[in-house]
């Protein structure tokens, strides 16, 4: 495995784990579901994504 590929893997993993890739996935879904209609800008998307946590708390274990 080349260092470049390793770096790519780590980056892919961290983006997926932290939810940084969520917006890309949203764009993809939106393109398929409602082609041509305007998408949420990233700022608005992330705002809604985070604010969901206010109403849906995730438990953390001990």
């Amino acid at each position, binding site marked *: 495995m080349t260092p470049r590929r390793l770096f*790519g*893997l780590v980056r*892919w*993993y*961290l*983006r*997926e*784990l*932290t*939810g*940084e890739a*969520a*917006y890309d*996935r*949203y764009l*993809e*879904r*939106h393109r*398929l*579901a*409602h082609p041509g209609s305007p998408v*949420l800008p*990233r*700022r608005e*998307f*992330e*705002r*809604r*994504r*985070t*604010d*969901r*946590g*206010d*109403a*849906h*708390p*995730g*438990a*953390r*274990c*001990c």
Partner: protein
Amino acid sequence: MTIPDTTRTRPSWRSILVWTAISIAGAVAWGIIALVRGEEISAFWLVVAALGTYAIGYRFYARFIARRVLQVDDTRATPAERLDDGVDYQPTDRRVLLGHHFAAIAGAGPLVGPVLAAQMGYLPGTMWIIIGVVFAGAVQDMVVLFISMRRNGRSLGQLARDEIGPIGGVAALVGVFSIMIILLAVLALVVVNALAESPWGTFSIAMTIPIALLMGFYLRTLRPGRVIETSLIGVALLILAIVAGGWVQASSWADAFTLSPQTLVFCLVAYGFVAAVLPVWMLLAPRDYLSTFMKIGTIGLLAIGVLIVAPTLQTEAVTQFALDGTGPVFAGSLFPFVFITIACGALSGFHALIASGTTPKMIQKESQVRMIGYGAMLMESFVAIMALIAACILDPGLYYAMNAPAGVLGTTVESASTAVANLGFTISPQDLQAAADAVGEESLVARTGGAPTLAVGMSEILSSVFGGDGLKAFWYHFAIMFEALFILTTVDAGTRVGRFMLQDTLGNVWKPLGRVGWKPGIWATSAIVVAAWGYFLYAGVNDPLGGINQLFPLFGIANQLLAAIALTVATTVLVKTGRLRWAWVTAAPLAWTAVVTLTASWQKVFSDDPRIGFFAQRERYADALANGEVLAPAKDLDQMRTVVVNSTVDGVLAAFFALLVVIVILNAAWVCWRAVRAPEPLPTTEAPYVESKLLVSAGAARSAPEPAGPPAPDDRP
């Protein structure tokens, strides 16, 4: 579509050789750990025994459970695929989901329990952590995950109600709530004991609040969604805060950050309340990112340290305290108290809440419950083994000087040295002071709660790999930071979860309280939750007998009780779905944890020994109080009254927990009996079979194409 190992083939020679080698290595390591006496053994053997056993457990037992018992079916669509809405339900790469799940289950629990259990020697703890996880803890996580997944990700409370009935459901709900309160109080107590009178630690932990606020603001306004970048900035600031703590300690500011335990209690309670009512983007979300990064990074670092240094264990294999039950850290003999003290890492009921939370809604393929449920728990178990190692490499004299209650040790190095000598160990006052100086603390006497002990052990290991003795103080405070950070995250999140449960329940009585957006309702319910754990925290800090000594067994009982409820639900489902033949897979750990919890509760309630039985303790102190006497370690009549109140509350709670578990088990036994006697199978509660169309390539990494799910009616985030 890849369905690994669906066809039975003859195992290859290579596979046979590899697994034989692993078995031999594991067996040799176990032999050395269990049989070598009279000379010190290397921690390396604990690591080999753990990894070897995990590998065999995962390869054979977990596979057997997945195929035979659960009968996972990769042609069946998971809820993530069927209900894919891009928000709650979405198929997630299994390695990513493993990371999510691990970050959610692993916290301070596996770090604290083993450290306290080290008073019984390294052998009982090691055996319980490794054997317990393979046959109980990981099984519980995996089976609950599977059951919840087959029912569209229902929560443990809902599963208990559906499968056992309303009584079981209510008992489970009450159990979850009360356990949460005890859990938060005990974890907060660990933080208080780690930060009290330590300006360095207090400063660096206090700094995490502005750091988190800054990250939250940065993510909200400047760079929305750039989590990695923000987390890297946060971690850099965190390291700076640790270093700066040393400067603060040496400066004139030190006094401002030298707080008594009582002051810290008020700070934590106030913090818990504010964190629970603030919007998540400000504090909770950034803190969660920080603690996830720190968690994975530090655990990795510690694993490397243990493997490189391979320190020798200083503790005996089995100490006298394991046999006679007179240990100063917590009272009671090996059975049942080792199995209560080490909950997380071997068997943790709390995980059932996570395994029936978000994780089951994100699984791509049914067979992945093995990797995510069983695998993540094995990882947590390994964390517990490392914590045990870190505690057992310390000189026993130092260990007891740090972990016996303050009432026994006194406040000076001289009194502590004498008290340790009375316990049968030695440490000179000079050595005790030198140990404190090395890690940059005023004193290490009676720093109970496990966190400081683990931090000293970690600083020994990490400083001998990175930086030498000069960095010991840094690594000590790094370890304190690492623990306090995720305990505080648990306190934030736990208070919030408790508040939602309370809002949900009270909303049935008075509608407005149930509305999640109604501010006065949020404030009132948050205040109730905070006050509840704050009460136990305050009682723990002021308890002359030592808060950890009194409360930790209660926490362990509560956690194992939740495990008993989860395993009861699992067993009931196995019986009801016609798998009576395989029900022992969860019934055996259930029987074990029921025997352990009920014995422990029985002793805590009915034991005549005032060190163990809460009511015997109450009676002893109440009688003395009536005569106007003061019994050590209490110093005055007020403290005598404190002991009487605390032991009453704790005793009632222990009895209440035991009662709950008995109700759930009896109710479930009745349901199982009916299911077995029923002439035809009971109606299923599973979601109906839908064929899976999802393609998942087995070894795909970044090339894994994001599956385009069916167009969802609503794809807003």
